């Protein structure tokens, strides 16, 4: 099985150089936080990730969770690892101080979450879902609910889940039909929820379910959905888990990946009705979900990076151990020396570094937006569908390349290459499919504001193009020319969309995917080019990275520009056709 080495140096480069963590923390008055602390935190988290969580990754794949009599038993070893994770305080990283959190910035949480997901994505989904529940409660819960549930959710003593999906309500949550009936101060919840990640397990003394359901008098559609807290065990007067609530796991899904993460069919109210407590106001549940959406979607985008990084490390390792072909003197050639294998490794490395740059940048913008920066807020809105949509799509390609580097051995389960490929396949689906992200980007995030946020981004990219083209370095000038070409192509397509798609919903839908991917490659290429500018400057000074790393940063940006940036042009061309034949065939001809 593959080992995992946390990419500490690149993480610190992106945090310190690309994002300017020290400056950011100064601006946001986070006096306690600086790049030095950040690097210690990432390094220490990396130890737990690589030494404790990573070895359990293939164990979870081969021995997934099981269910019996309504209760799920998680993969052996997960519970001990979870206790260690909680005892070491990692669940508290970004939580507010008043509820026992460390109140560290979201961007640092993102850098650390990358490690959890790389080491063991199926495991890391559990704390990720808890974080979602925490955010929902902080934003919308009453003081009483916060006091009862937040400290234990933030410490990790209890975990949280999100119960949204039903058999007939997937991407379209307006169709939610679970019922909530008032019963004194509380509510009785009944109905079935599916695809509930970590819906049940034995790792903690309680599980806090957040459930979308309808009140009896609720209006139809999206405006009639309310959000409830339904604990697995009801709390006694001391706030401790006591009587079991009327909720159970009916069955587990048999999935193509993330076997270590129990995906539950949850049944609420089979008997007297599960007791639930209303979060916020009635009928506002869906809008509450939207307030958490940026963070939740960026978290899944990050998983795309994490799993691709793990796959990349495995490919680098294997390609040095596998010998095929001989030199003239009879010595064997490790496949890492073959150009096509090297191309695949570089494609993975460049893709990963672009994703890291984008994921951390978007996360830092969430921090700035939280502190009231309006420009960052609109940038978060624009970035989020790109982070979720593009990164999880690219993860399909990169984890597939790892299988390819392994050749026949990659198709055989025992090398573990297939696991990353299978695990990655859920990413463009859950938390809003790629299609949903693409529509979000072209509709709400581009047409809705007449392209204002998009234009700001384009201007910033243009500024980097100018810096690159005025650089004394030939490599940077070349990079500048390539980025400029891609930017022009993307601007053409963007203008065309603004001119033509606003009035034509079908046209907008046709080109939305290409627009998403185009923006992904453009933004990724831009952030790597910015990294190259930083690297070139650093080379002139006494620095902590060293020439090999900085030169690699520049070469990787160049490889991205050669290998991926031309895709901006391809997607742009497709957009300009309007893909007008999408609906050319009647359904019976399909």
């Amino acid at each position: 099985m593959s080992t995992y080495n946390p990419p500490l140096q690149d993480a610190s480069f992106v945090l310190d150089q690309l994002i300017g963590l020290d400056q950011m923390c100064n601006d946001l008055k986070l006096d306690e936080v600086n790049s030095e602390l950040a690097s210690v935190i990432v390094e220490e988290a990396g130890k737990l990730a690589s030494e404790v969580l990573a070895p359990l990754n293939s164990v979870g794949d081969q021995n997934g969770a099981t269910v019996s009599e309504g209760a799920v038993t998680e993969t052996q070893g997960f519970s001990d690892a979870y206790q260690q994770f909680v005892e070491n305080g990692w669940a508290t990283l970004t939580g507010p101080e008043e509820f026992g959190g460390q109140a560290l910035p979201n961007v640092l949480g993102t850098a650390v979450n990358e490690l959890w997901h790389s080491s063991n994505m199926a495991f890391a989904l559990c704390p990720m879902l808890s974080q979602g529940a925490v955010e929902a409660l902080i934003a919308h819960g009453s003081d009483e609910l916060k006091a009862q549930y937040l400290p234990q959710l933030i410490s990790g003593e209890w975990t949280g889940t999100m119960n949204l999906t039903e058999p007939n309500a997937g991407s379209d949550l307006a169709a939610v039909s679970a019922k909530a009936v008032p019963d004194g101060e509380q509510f009785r919840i009944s109905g079935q929820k599916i695809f509930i990640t970590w819906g049940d397990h034995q790792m903690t003394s309680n599980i806090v379910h957040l459930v979308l359901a309808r009140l009896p008098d609720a209006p139809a559609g999206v405006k009639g959905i309310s959000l409830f807290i339904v604990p697995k065990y009801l709390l006694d007067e001391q706030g401790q888990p006591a009587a079991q609530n009327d909720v159970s796991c009916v069955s587990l899904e048999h999935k193509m990946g993330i076997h270590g993460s129990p995906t539950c069919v949850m049944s609420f109210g089979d008997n007297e009705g599960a007791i639930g407590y209303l979060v916020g106001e009635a009928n506002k549940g869906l809008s509450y979900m939207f307030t958490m959406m940026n963070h939740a979607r960026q978290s899944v985008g990050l998983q795309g990076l994490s799993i691709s990084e793990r796959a990349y490390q495995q490919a680098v390792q294997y390609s040095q151990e596998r010998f095929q072909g001989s030199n003239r003197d009879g010595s064997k050639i490790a496949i890492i020396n073959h150009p096509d294998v090297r191309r695949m490794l570089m494609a993975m490395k460049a893709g990963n570094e672009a994703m890291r740059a984008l994921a951390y940048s978007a996360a830092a913008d969430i921090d700035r937006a939280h502190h009231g920066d309006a420009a960052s807020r609109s940038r978060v809105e624009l970035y989020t569908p790109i982070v979720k949509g593009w990164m999880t799509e690219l993860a399909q390609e990169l984890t597939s390349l790892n299988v390819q580097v392994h050749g026949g051995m990659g198709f055989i389960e025992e090398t573990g290459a297939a696991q990353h490929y299978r695990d990655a396949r859920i990413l463009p689906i859950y938390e809003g499919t790629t299609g949903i992200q693409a529509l979000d980007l072209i509709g709400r995030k581009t047409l809705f504001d007449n392209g204002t946020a998009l234009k700001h981004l384009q201007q910033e990219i243009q500024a980097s193009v100018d810096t690159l083209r005025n650089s004394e370095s030939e490599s940077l000038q070349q990079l500048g020319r390539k980025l400029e070409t891609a930017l022009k192509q993307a601007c053409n397509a963007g203008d065309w969309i603004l001119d033509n798609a606003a009035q034509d919903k079908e046209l907008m839908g046709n080109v939305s995917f290409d627009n998403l991917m185009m923006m992904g490659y453009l933004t990724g290429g831009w952030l790597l080019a910015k990294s190259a500018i930083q690297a070139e400057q650093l080379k002139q000074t006494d620095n902590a990275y060293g020439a090999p790393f900085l030169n690699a940063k520049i070469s990787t940006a160049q490889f991205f520009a050669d290998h991926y940036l031309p895709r901006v042009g391809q997607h742009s061309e497709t957009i300009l056709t309007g893909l007008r034949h999408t609906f050319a065939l009647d359904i019976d001809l399909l």
Partner: protein
Amino acid sequence: MKILVTVKRVIDYNVKVRVKSDNTDVDLANVKMALNPFCEIAVEEAVRLKEAGVATEVVVVSIGPKACQEQIRTALALGADRGIQIETDSMPESLNAAKLLAKVIAEEQPELIVMGKQAIDSDNNQTGQMLAALLDMPQGTFASELKLESGKAQVTREVDGGLQTVELNLPAIVTTDLRLNEPRYASLPNIMKAKRKPLAVKTPADLGVELKEHSKLIQVTPPAERQAGIKVASVDELVEKLKNEAKVI
């Protein structure tokens, strides 16, 4: 009881060690550095003694350039209370290190000194022993178990023939072997607290120690690369090769 723990900044054990092209030293430029694993075990043991209520304060000392403060902070994040850095340009050789530590110990007056048995960079395994001689203190080296009772330390030592248990009067010096304990991971709250723990910086001059050159590094060469093996046709051929080529029998 005050415990003093020494920690050394060394090349990370995961890093493939490279020799500089001019063979003057190991290449440490932009290489990941870490807390010496044996020192980590020493820190863990001291912190456990504090958690058990036996020790009241754990002080960590490191010698080296400013960068070694990172390793002091790591030890503080594992639970030590305060740090002392003795600032030197490079890592001093064992005897100089022992002399510097002797002065710190004279100032701090700890009842127990816990050290790694050796550092994984130079593998000398001598600073603890030298320090014991300089201070005229009892020493229990290669400890795999440590018990403190009524002013004495019982140390189980890993020796060639098995285990040997010695009893030392305090203050004493104990050096750790691998099996003494399994160090914990630093917790996030402790990493945050470590930032605020005191860290004093001293120079050899402050301690009145003049660093002397007792030995000289002449050359560093990487070990010979392993050659590919061959298959022998018979036992006779094997014996013949072991006798005449390998010259081991």
